[in-house]
């Protein structure tokens, strides 16, 4: 059993704080609610101690000490607000800014720049620099996703440490010395790894900006909603940053809603990081969406109302139920649906008496030994935990043999998984192919009825990641065009078929889910919070 570390007590700005041995002064200051500014320090990286802005006065030590590196000691007295500390901080900030171009109006970082923030909090000096600033490379694309402005760089070396210690790809370095020092990639090389985008997140200034996000939207127009990345089964915690001024500024990014995804700290899942595949894989939210109910049942395709679509499916199912032919109905749920969606679907089809209900994962993709998972489903574990069988393959074969009349497919483009021929074959044998999903693709185009549904960014609910961690997602956006949430569509269907399902919202569904499903027993949104909870083993 691990020993509990020794506790030490120190005084910070007159406040007594007790921390475990091995804590740095900086961490102790945060605990004492006397936060110290920092640039080069990052909790996920080694200590560099080079920016010097976290200097604090430690009583009995003549020189100011850097809080990020100095271990807290018993009886230590730290002043983070003394004149000595404040002038040290102000002086360091002035040094950091003398060669900085101060091009905030055209800088993408403006609004979330730590130079701006700290200048307002700790600077406010009369500038004394009257010389020519150092010239360094600007607007250099150092890789597919990242743009470098070496003049804005404060040489904190966070990005260099990231590519050394986290991505372990070693693309970045600091060249030359003195005030000629500059960050860069080796000549002829580029910053291109699965995690490149993180260097933009950890860059405290505008030196590394995101080529995807650059100049799309000023950050003060962004709204932020906590969510979970749906790019793979890892379930990295993220924030969805969307244009919350879209109504008044529709010109921004051609009216797209989601501007970028940013990782959100979760010590048990992704720490501070996320992969580029997930980070830049948000385009499907605003592109190529299914907007309206479509019917291709008889003759030419036509758009329809929700009532028309749901009525059509409802009538078909009712007929088959009455004819006791529900064994000719198949449902292919998706590992992209939330636990709540899956639970409502499970209940609906169980009460109807549809037995052939499976879920389908997307095709496996790239993976690495850090975050990126080959399984691209955000909620396959949830589907399993709800006891839903896996794979659409059997149902497709049955359909191809004419043994199915109705197949209801959710989200997935089955053609990318099983090949185009198989899907066309299956569709031919069916009386009714229903596709309920978010984006347009071959499976949707083959369907007789298309029901547009919401993407995860438009949903409240939970997803279960590869480790069985149930995590909350929140709706950052309203449903696109006429699309609706999946469980709402199914509840609508239930009403047509006389099945009693009437949940008011996702929390109500989850409460019932937690009560009925053994794997989820005892869980609640409160318990899940922002960091998620593991399913019972």
């Amino acid at each position, binding site marked *: 059993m691990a020993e509990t570390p020794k506790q030490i007590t120190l005084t910070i700005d007159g406040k007594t704080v007790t921390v475990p041995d091995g804590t740095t002064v900086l961490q102790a200051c945060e605990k004492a609610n006397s936060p110290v500014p920092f640039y080069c320090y990052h909790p996920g990286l080694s*200590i560099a*101690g*080079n*920016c*010097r*802005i976290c*200097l604090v006065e430690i009583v009995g030590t*003549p*020189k*100011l000490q850097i809080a990020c*590196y100095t271990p807290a000691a018993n009886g230590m007295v730290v002043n983070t607000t003394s004149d000595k500390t404040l002038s*040290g901080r102000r*002086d*360091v900030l*002035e*040094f*950091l800014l*003398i*060669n900085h171009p101060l091009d905030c109006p055209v800088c993408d970082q403006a609004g979330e720049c730590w130079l701006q923030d700290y200048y307002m909090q700790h600077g406010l000096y009369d500038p*004394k*620099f*009257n*010389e*020519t600033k*150092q010239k360094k490379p600007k607007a250099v694309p150092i890789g597919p996703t990242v743009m470098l402005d070496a003049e804005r760089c*404060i*040489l904190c070396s966070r990005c260099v440490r990231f*590519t*050394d210690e986290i991505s372990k*790809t*070693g*693309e*970045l*370095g*600091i*060249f*030359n*010395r*003195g*005030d*000629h*020092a500059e960050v860069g*990639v*080796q*000549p*002829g*090389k580029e910053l291109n790894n699965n995690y490149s985008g993180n260097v933009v997140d950890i860059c405290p200034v505008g030196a590394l900006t995101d080529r995807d996000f650059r100049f799309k939207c000023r950050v003060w127009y962004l709204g932020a909603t906590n969510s979970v990345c749906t790019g793979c089964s890892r379930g990295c915690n993220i924030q969805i940053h969307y244009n919350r001024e879209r109504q008044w500024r529709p010109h921004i990014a051609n009216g797209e809603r989601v501007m970028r995804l940013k990782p959100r700290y979760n010590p048990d899942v992704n720490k501070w990081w996320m992969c580029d595949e997930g980070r830049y894989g948000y385009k499907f939210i605003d592109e190529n969406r299914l907007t309206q109910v479509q019917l291709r049942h008889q003759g030419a395709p036509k758009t329809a109302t929700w009532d028309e679509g749901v009525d059509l499916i409802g009538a078909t199912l009712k007929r088959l139920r009455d004819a006791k032919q529900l064994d000719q109905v198949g449902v292919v749920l998706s590992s992209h649906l939330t636990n709540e969606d899956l639970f409502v679907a499970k209940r609906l089809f169980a009460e109807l008496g549809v037995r052939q209900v499976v879920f389908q994962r997307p095709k496996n993709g790239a993976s690495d030994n850090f975050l990126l998972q080959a399984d691209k489903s955000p909620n396959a574990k949830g589907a399993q935990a709800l006891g839903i069988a896996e794979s659409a393959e059997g149902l497709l074969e049955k359909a191809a043999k004419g043994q199915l009349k109705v197949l209801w497919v959710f989200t997935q483009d089955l053609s990318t998984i099983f090949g185009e021929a198989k899907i066309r074959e299956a569709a031919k044998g069916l009386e009714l192919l229903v596709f309920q999903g978010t984006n347009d693709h071959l499976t949707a185009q083959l369907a007789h009825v298309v029901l547009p549904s919401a993407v995860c960014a438009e949903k409240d609910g939970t997803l279960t990641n590869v480790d069985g961690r149930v995590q909350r997602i929140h709706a950052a956006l309203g449903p696109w065009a006429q699309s609706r949430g999946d469980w709402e569509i199914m509840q609508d269907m239930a009403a047509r078929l006389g099945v009693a399902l009437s949940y008011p919202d996702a929390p109500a569904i989850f409460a019932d889910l937690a009560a009925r499903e053994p794997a989820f027993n005892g869980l609640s949104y409160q318990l899940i919070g922002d960091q998620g909870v593991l399913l019972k083993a």
Partner: protein
Amino acid sequence: MQPPATDVKRQEISPAQLKTLDASAQQILAKYEFPRAATLPLLRLVQERFGFINTAAEEWVAGLVGVAAVHIHEVVTFYTLFHQQPVGTYHIQVCQNIACALRGAEGCLASLSERLGITPGQTTPDGKFTLSAVECLCACEAGPVMQVNDQYVGPVSAQVIDALLKTPEALPELPVVFQGTVGLVEPVLSKRFNFKDSTLIETYVRDEGYQAARKAVAELTPDQVIAEVTKANLRGLGGAGFPTGKKWSFIPKESAKPKFLVVNADEGEPGTIKDRYIIARDPHRLIEGMIIAARATGCRKAYVYVRGEYAEPARILQQAIDEAYKYGFLGQHIFNTDASLEIVLHRGAGAYICGEETALLSSLEGGKGFPRLKPPFPAIAGLFGSPTVINNVETLACVPTILNKGGEWFAKLGYGKTGGMRLYSISGHIKKPGLYEASQGVTLRELIEAAGGVPEGRTLKAVIPGGISAKILRADEVGVRMDFDSLLAAGTMAGSAGIIVMDDSTCMLQALWYAAKFFAHESCGQCSPCREGTGWIFKIIDRIVKGQGRPQDLDILMGVASNMEGRTICVFADAAAWPVQSYISKFREEFELHVREKRCHLTPAPAREPLAVNVWSSR
């Protein structure tokens, strides 16, 4: 019209060409515990063969030492001796630091530039000469000096430049300017400097060499050695003045990891020439000191980090090391005991900061010369994370004498809490520049007088007592003794005992300009106050020199200096601040005149008559 200067045609080094170096590379790698430490020697190997280092070469080295190629590129760009472009057949590097500047280095560079038709940084169209301005080469006794490829040449005169342009392959050797002792009964460190064949082990053994080492290894316990050195009041002569016996006692007796002795021979403090004399004139004294230090601290492996520019001293030292192995003084079972000591000579690549002990370790490990956060101190976790004792060349060279003559004898030779004597480098406006040996208690005045004083017709104005970092002393302050504590009490420091003398023809603004240029050039760039502050200071001073000073500039300078002082990982920022603070506070009227009236108090400026033996003349 000057002919347009062109770069030498861009060449490439192919992976196949690099492969031909594989065997040599393996020999280099075998010397080091950790492959990455071979980075600098491997880059040197490439450059010696191909003349420069390209991306393919960086990748080849990266593959051999096992780091990302970008970090090799960092190293190549950090050190001044590595070239990313080919240079001319003869690379002329002219010192433009203060000691040489006082002796006409500016005119020397201007003349070379005119004669070659290129500006510093360029190569002649025929690819024969590349001209560079460099910082202190630490041959200030022969200033103005230059380095042509590996060879030091000085004092540079019109005749020397003629010779260089005509027969660059046969240049005169640097003179040995050991000038004798001041007030000592007999020389200690310098005794053999003027001996014939003083570098050979035969003569060293003949002069009773290696007896102290034999005694330390075969007769004394480590504690006895440390006790003797402690009794001697020997202090670190690299400049910090830390008691050597105490430093050795910090090395843990028991260590799971191997312990290392590292010799700081990265002499770089402008105005300092002493370590070069010890290495080049009496290398076995250093080796003997190392054997004793290794015995006292339990080290079985030692590295000597020699500054990159010291090619000839490094060659001499390597030869001496090889001789010592042959005599059984190094290697296994030295002096027929169980003791062993391996010495590896490691060359730097041009970076003043590597004289800072933790920067030296970073460099020795194959990285940029970045000083490290402390603690841990090197005694606990230094080279490769092992307990490491780091001593300066001169410090170790004192040790054999301490064991031979006793700690008490050595302590008495000194003054106060500083035992023994010291090698003083004297340069600048002085009649007999060179190296002098004297007691720690000698006064600055005695040294200046021994060196003949300032040139005829001039009066003493100011003296830097301990290398360019030390605060300057006015002429009326030279009565101070030269030991660490006396100079500290006088508001300056003993530093490396590099004394730079300035007479009344010196413009203090100009002198400070040289110091500021040096620190801006040599800041490693790690900590923001130093990286930005050194450049800022230089830019302000440069602007005042150009007659664009503003009334507030002097206060800004003082402010910037004090704002960076004490706020960085190492003391480089402090060292950069001290000249600014002391020059301005002690000669404020001169600076104010420059700011207010845009002119020097020396108007018309006195003819800068060169003071070197072979006088430089521009026409």
